[in-house]
């Protein structure tokens, strides 16, 4: 029953939501759905510490075993619990100067910088791997070049003020790209529906694994 009851809950909830979407006249079903939506927000909120526990486990093991870089792991846990406890006990809200300092001067800029470093890898990847080895690779390369030059003012400047590269880039985006993406997304939608159906019916059980019998 350790798997069957949770699977039954999953099935009942999914069916309830599908029924509630199509039978909107029933006050009981609508109220039940709204209550369950509320409960979903609460369940998600209370699961917030999962990331913290995982990080503590992984880095705690590294510190205990004194593996290479364990000092950094200790620093990470100090930052994690320091930020959490100082925010909750001292700052107490997002209005506090301390919170705004930590967010505006450290967290947000570091978050942005981590993504910003990808530009170097993209540039290096474009140089190393974009080779005209076949017709399809050539099409991909030419489209990428048209896009990169057409979507910035440089494209217009290179053609002496004429907007042709930009117009070509816009047409590529709105016609062939959109057509290809639509095909992929329709496929993805059907795949998502099939997966949801499989989970609901208990055919897909991967989410139940990793927790014992």
């Amino acid at each position, binding site marked *: 029953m350790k798997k069957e009851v949770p699977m039954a809950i999953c099935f009942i909830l999914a069916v309830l939501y599908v029924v509630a979407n199509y039978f909107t006249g029933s006050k009981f079903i609508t109220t039940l759905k709204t209550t369950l939506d509320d409960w979903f927000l609460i369940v998600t909120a209370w699961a917030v510490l999962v990331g913290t526990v995982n990080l503590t486990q992984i880095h705690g093991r590294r510190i205990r075993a004194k593996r290479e870089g364990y000092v950094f792991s200790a620093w990470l846990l100090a930052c994690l619990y320091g930020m959490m406890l100082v*925010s909750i006990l001292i700052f107490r809200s997002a209005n506090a100067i301390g919170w705004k300092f930590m967010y505006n001067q450290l967290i947000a800029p570091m978050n942005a910088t981590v993504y910003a470093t990808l530009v170097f890898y993209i540039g290096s990847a474009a140089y190393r791997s974009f080779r005209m080895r076949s017709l399809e690779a050539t099409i991909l390369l030419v489209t*990428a070049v048209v896009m990169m030059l057409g979507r910035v003012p440089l494209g217009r400047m290179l053609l002496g003020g004429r907007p042709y590269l930009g117009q070509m880039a816009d047409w590529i985006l709105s016609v062939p790209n959109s057509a290809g993406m639509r095909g992929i997304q329709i496929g993805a939608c059907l795949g998502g*529906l099939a997966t949801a159906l499989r989970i609901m019916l208990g055919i897909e059980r991967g989410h139940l694994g990793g927790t014992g019998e």
Partner: protein
Amino acid sequence: MSASLTLWGTWLQALFTILLVSVVFKDNPAYRFAEHTYVGLFAGYFVALTYFNYLRPNITDRLIKKGEYLLLIPIVIGLLIYTRYIRSIAWLSRYTICFNLGIGCGYVLSKDFKPFFVDQVKATFLLLWGTGNWWKTFSNWIYVVGTVTSLVYFLFTLQKKGVQGRISQIGRVVMMIAFGAAFGNTVMARVSLFLGRMQFLMGTWLKLIKI
């Protein structure tokens, strides 16, 4: 924020930006220090924000002040996820997962079909003649043929031979155009991200440019 605090903050921000960017040249301890600082601070920030904006008002306002004791049910379901870390009772975490998945699947099955299948297919029914503009007619043909052929490409149950093979080939070409466009836009996005950091370093920190 006072001027001196802002100045300290600017220098700290510049230091961590340079430390994080240094990894592209070579992995180094300074980068690892900055990376671990970021991960720790961000995880702590996320927990604290959820606590301020949701957990604390849930307990103080709804549970204690208004006496909505029925909320103990979702609170317990949410807390059951932490039983994953205790092997003997780890199976209890399935309740949290299945509760969330059940609602998630319900929404996918009830809400996804119309906007992302029906409406998308409807929008593919474009005028293939009589638009009054030859370029529009040509574009509509490319659109319809492109959508159909890229869908045919994903019919893996049929062998890609003969007519189906040729149609799939056209679909591949259309998808290569889509991926080329995606790559071009990805470059644009990544450059913009780095540009933002350069504007901070050169403008706010070194005051070489005016933002």
